[in-house]
């Protein structure tokens, strides 16, 4: 198992934005029993601009830390800007997340994409 950075440990021990949104613009949900992951991702979007992002999660350290930094970055970004965020960027914010953890941490982005898809289908 590769080692986590201190930034990742600090982030997961004090995660931001855990919770739900009452009237979300979009929701993404992932259950993966193989990875023991259960994740629900909530977005509040106003005029194509993200105003809030929250999540509920059971999963590994990498995923919790990634969700925490991702949801801090989202407010103020357009949906298109959010879609452009990738693991390389989030890894950098976490002072380098071991590449072996990117797949599991990637559930954060996957759930955000699902929430955006959900938002688009609601507004289409």
């Amino acid at each position, binding site marked *: *198992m590769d080692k*986590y950075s201190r930034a990742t*440990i600090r982030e997961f*021990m004090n995660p931001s934005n855990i919770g739900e949104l009452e009237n979300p613009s979009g929701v993404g949900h992932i259950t993966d029993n*193989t990875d*023991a992951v*259960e994740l629900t991702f909530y977005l509040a979007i106003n005029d194509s601009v993200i105003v809030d992002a929250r999540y*509920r999660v059971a999963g590994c*350290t990498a995923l919790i830390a990634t969700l925490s930094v991702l949801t801090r970055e989202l407010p103020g970004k357009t949906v298109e800007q959010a879609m452009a965020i990738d693991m390389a960027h989030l890894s950098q914010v976490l002072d380098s997340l071991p590449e072996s953890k990117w*797949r599991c941490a990637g559930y954060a982005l996957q759930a955000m994409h699902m929430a955006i898809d959900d938002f688009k289908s609601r507004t289409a």
Partner: protein
Amino acid sequence: MEKIVYLDNAATTPVDPAVMEEMRPYFTERFANPMTYTHSSSGDVAHAALEEARGRVASLIGAKPDQIVFTSGGTESDNWALKGVTEKASRERLHRAGHMVTVEFEHHAILHAAVALQRQGYDVSFVKVGRSGIVDPDDVRHAMKPNTVLISIMHGNNEIGTIQPVAEIARIAHEHEALMHTDAVQTAAHIPIDVETMGVDLLSLSAHKFNGPKGVGILYVRDHQSLYPLLDGGGQEWGLRGSTHNVSGIVGLGKAAQLGKQRLPGELTRLTGLRNALYEKLTSRIDRISVNGDMKQRVPQNLNIRIDGIDNEPLLLAMNEAGIIAAGGSACNTQETVASHVLTSIGCDLKEAKSSIRLSLGYGTTDKDIEYAADVIPGLVRFLRSMR
């Protein structure tokens, strides 16, 4: 970090100061090669130390000194037992490829050595285990074949600590003219071992699991003719394992074995009490918690618990931040966190396996350590569950 509560003694233990003291001169003034004892008094000092250590280890497991062959540790002993016996019996007795029986939840030193034998054309059966984590001897009996030359069943499981009915399985081996090996790495110096009562032909143990140094262990070999030599070299260890002796390490192993034998009765009671107290406290403070494997037929130092709704990786990291060192179902030796093969073999699904942690106590574990762990872990579980 000011306070460390070390609950990962199944992974390794600290060297006891008395062991260290006994080893020290063999790095410096008593450095001679023990094989020079015939013509050198310095060599004789080293040789005498070697033989004293051999006697101490023999005494720990009820063996004769000349049945104790020094190795570099558990993995080497396990590999040697499996390959040395299977290859020799196949070539010299059966004149065809032999078969061996082991269990799905062995340590990788056994499993991977068994797979290596399969690659060489030998036949291996991996017996299954149930929720109890205790092998059913009948399952072993059913796996026997006319060409079975060896059964290898661990004495105590390294992850869940369950103790296996080795004596009963040894009788099955002998009824079929096969030999019996047991990996006693987790049990040596923790529960009583007597190779005669157990009826084993080969037994592995490793010093660093009972406050001895790393890199030294033994293979108990009842009959030197039962297996091929491991290393061809200068004829050390009756020609079974060439290589200049690791004298300081062996001296440390001997001292740790002596101390282990003296301390065993008291530690067995003390650690069982502490382990059970830890489990009771945790169950009273955390809901949806259960033990993996049988709780009674288990080494005193092991507690392996499943905590619903959490992933063991963040829990272990959070515990580490709080100064508590423990382990997941298994030590991760791959790039990614994998679910323990031991837990999945006893019927845990991947989610259950990934929500399990192993807390293993040792000689250095105190009442205060257990109280601290029982106070801190529930809060960390609540913290992780609050994210759901």
